[in-house]
């Protein structure tokens, strides 16, 4: 079974803390980063396969971050969570390798379901 570890990348502290609390309550280990650069540094030392990324980040944005993550770990499952995405960004999301996207505010159960589905999928891959 794949370790139940999630990476949350979100620059807004209150939203970051909320997500961490919500997922930890559900039994996941949660690592957080407030920028794409910090996230990439973490991924150099830790193997994390399920990620929730904000699209609007200072410095490198979420779309570019997803491209970088897919280079390092193509099997990983990344979700975009954003306050607003233009048509261009949505097209970019698909192209850069996001599995899905959620527009804030996202219900807790929707986030839980996304995490659950991602790990189930990874487990299926691993069992083959």
């Amino acid at each position, binding site marked *: 079974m794949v370790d139940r570890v999630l990476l949350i990348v979100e620059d807004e502290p209150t939203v970051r803390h*909320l997500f961490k609390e919500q997922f930890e309550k559900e039994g996941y280990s949660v690592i957080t980063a407030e920028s794409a650069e910090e996230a990439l540094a973490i991924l150099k030392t830790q193997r994390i396969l399920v990620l929730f990324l904000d699209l609007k980040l200072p410095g490198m944005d979420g779309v570019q971050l997803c491209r970088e993550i897919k280079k390092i770990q193509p099997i990983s499952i990344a979700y975009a969570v954003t*306050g607003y995405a*233009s048509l261009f960004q*949505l097209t970019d999301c698909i192209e850069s390798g996001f599995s899905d996207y959620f*527009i804030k*505010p996202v219900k807790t159960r929707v986030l839980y379901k996304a995490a659950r589905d991602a790990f189930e999928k990874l487990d299926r891959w691993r069992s083959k």
Partner: protein
Amino acid sequence: MKILIIDDDPLTVELLQNILRHAGFEQVQGEGDPVAALALVPEFNPDLIVLDMQMPGMSGLEFCARLKKSTSTMGIPVIMITAGSGSVDDTINQAYGAGCFDFITKPLHAAEVLARIKSALTIRRALLKLQDELKLRAEIEKVLQASEYRFRAIAELTPDAIVIADVHEHIVFWNRGSEQMFGYMRDEVMGRHIDFLLAERFREVDKRGFQALSKTDVSGLFGKRIEAWGVSKSGREFPLESSMAAWQEGTTVFFSATIRDLTERHTAEEQRIEQEKLNSVLEMAGAVCHELNQPLQVIMGYAEMLQQNLPPDSPQQLRVEKIAAQAEKLGNITQKLADITRYETKSYIQKTRIVDIHKASEK
């Protein structure tokens, strides 16, 4: 000036040569045989021939008649020398009849010979000068015709309207572009005052502009551009840009206006401004959605957590539920707003229609 002397008497030839050389004529050639002399004429191309009337082989009259037959030699003046015997009237008639310019009767007197030769040469010079001038004029005419042709071609082929007016602002030139732009045929406008081409409200301005111009120094107008509204025969008003020029032909001043219809440019500009306005509204709406959704996420997330933590029968459950529901309601509103901006952005990109932002905001 070159002079050819033809006489079968060598003494006469020598005498004439001496007289002429003494008077300063350098190119003087003598010839005793009229047949040989006739062959020599095209090559030597003399400006004057002094010719003996009676010669063996060919008479002076026959020589003269042959000379006048050829177009290249017919213009050379001939002075005939006569022996002085016989009827003077006959000699005069015969000599002039053959095309001679003048005649001298022997015995020869230097002063008379020189006077008659100089007189003939003066006329010869004048004729040559006239010929040159005619030739030059013909060439200039050709160049002018070519230039006129080029001007007509450019003026007729350009889609711009070119209108030329005289100092009284009456139309003297109206090209095909003008016909198409204003809808008037050439015959309808020639001689008319240019006023009628501008929309009523621009006419006074235009008049003042013209009156302010110095009618003698027109250089100030050159290259001046004006934007105004024109009016066509059908009454359609349209924006136009006109490049002005003026020039003087002798004492007469002419004005030209090269006019371009700006309708398309105006429409494109209006559309561009409209699209920019729309774009900035869409951008702003997107930014508002983003900023509102961040706190909404926090409110909704914590409300849901509280609901889970509270005992199911707690009186606080209902209150927290209301917070979560209101946060969700707000989330739906921002979602609708985001949908509108995305929908409008899509139409805008696909250029399927020009979005009326007022209507868009009512949705």
